[in-house]
């Protein structure tokens, strides 16, 4: 069923999903929590590489190491509440990681037989999906170009050449879609110039977003703030974050998932 009312939310079974990262790349830029290691829940994800992800790319799932651990639920699932605290202020995008592919430094990759992530978007609607770059090593001045099939199935669209930041591992940058596009169905190719390390390209579906304004204080985000984004049993949930200082920005995040 669909949660369509406050009463539906009240009666829906709920679970608490914890996402705890106490080590992260040091950056006042956006970074990906995917590979953040240490004494974390869940464990650090594995970086997709040329060897393990080309030429098709991978659709990571809830069972992929690095994804938030979700207990299987019946019906439709929604993120209905979150509580979070962090040692420094920062901004967070909680996302469903739909697709990723890795490459070596400055490698051009033409993808083929890409697996579809259509089952992880509501109503077959590819709008709102985003392309991100993740650094796998510090240094260089990489410029990325990604071609893709847009939300309506038009092929050969491009992000154009976009300078990204690779100052440290895990630093992430969103790549702009071509004007007129609002999402994408498929990555077609990736290319990089000016890099000295490998790179990762992801397709993500933003779920909800929040800001930690005060260090070491609990922040509660009820459903009017999360917006009840729908998730799936196999959703691969983690976050992109932007800290306010050069200190590492981990987080202790608990998400309430209601299903009906």
């Amino acid at each position, binding site marked *: 069923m669909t949660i369509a009312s406050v009463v539906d939310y009240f009666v829906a079974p709920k679970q608490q999903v914890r996402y705890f990262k106490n080590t992260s790349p040091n950056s006042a830029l956006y970074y990906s929590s995917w590979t953040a290691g240490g004494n974390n829940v869940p464990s650090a994800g594995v970086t997709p590489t040329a060897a393990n992800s080309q030429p098709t790319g991978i659709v990571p799932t809830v069972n992929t190491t690095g994804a938030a651990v979700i207990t299987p639920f019946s019906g439709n699932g929604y993120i209905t509440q979150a509580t979070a605290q962090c040692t420094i202020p920062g901004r967070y995008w909680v996302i469903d990681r739909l697709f990723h592919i890795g490459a070596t430094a400055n490698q051009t990759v033409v993808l083929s037989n890409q697996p579809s992530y259509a089952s992880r978007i509501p109503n077959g609607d590819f*709008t709102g999906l985003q392309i991100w770059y993740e650094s796998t090593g510090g240094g260089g001045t990489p410029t990325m170009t990604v071609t893709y099939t847009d939300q309506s199935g038009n092929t050969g669209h491009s992000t154009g050449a976009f300078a990204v930041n690779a100052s440290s591992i895990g630093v992430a940058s*969103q790549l702009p879609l071509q004007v007129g596009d609002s999402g994408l169905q498929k990555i077609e190719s990736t290319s990089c110039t000016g890099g000295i390390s490998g790179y990762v390209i992801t397709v993500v579906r933003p779920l909800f977003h929040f*800001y930690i*304004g005060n260090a070491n204080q609990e922040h509660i985000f009820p459903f009017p703030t999360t917006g*009840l984004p729908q998730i799936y049993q196999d959703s691969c949930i983690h976050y992109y974050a932007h800290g306010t200082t050069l200190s590492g920005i981990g987080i202790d995040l608990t998400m309430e998932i209601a299903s009906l």
Partner: protein
Amino acid sequence: MTIMTLDQWIGGTKEIKSYSRTTTRTSVANVWFTVHDLAGHPGAATLAVGNTANGLVPVSGPAGAQTNGYPLLNFSSNVTGYLTNVDFGSTVACRLSIYDRLFNCGAYTFNAATTLASQPSYAGRVPGGTDFTGLQLWAEAVTAGTLVQNVTVTYTDQSGNTGHTTGAVSAGAALTVGKLWQLPLAAGDSGLQKIESVTGTVASAGTFNVFVARPLWSGRVTIANGGDCHGLDRVGMPQIWNTSCLALMVNADSTSTGNPDIILEITSF
């Protein structure tokens, strides 16, 4: 349909749009500056409007009709859209404001004296198609100027009365690119249906646009790299349209517009 209950918001279709700027602009403390022409997501708009004789009603989407610089909105014209959530932050302390850019014209030279004709209507982007109250009139510097730019705009007010005027409004200082200054409406006016003429005086160099804004939301970033999340109770759920051009202006505490990073939730029902 109109969202009239919390249940309807819950059941509404949500879309998430990002609005960030990856380059900064030199600003003046406590003065509004435009940033929709800077690089980021969505891509940069062209600052000069490119039409001085008639003006343009910029539109954003559906696909194929997008004007760069504004998020592409996806909801159908058969449903009603609302801005329901704004998550925002910036690398500088500032106030951020999002508005629907309903109409713009320019770029005018410093000494322009232009009477517009055949202006396209923006009635399709105000509630009910008839309520022009609350709309604002702004001038926007396109190129740097010499001496202090003054701008006079005559307009048709919210009720259809023609020939109302702002009087000559000073920019306060020589224009710098992207600077904004609001033009006060005539006493007793609360909005406008149409810009009739634009006149520039005093300055000896520089160009500027004039635009009509429908303010939707504003929020304060209290410290550098700070931000907040405003849910529907704080945003107030202003109605928008799938052609709305959601544009951003920044009023920084210091001399840089910083890198604003905003995420918008739009609910349609």
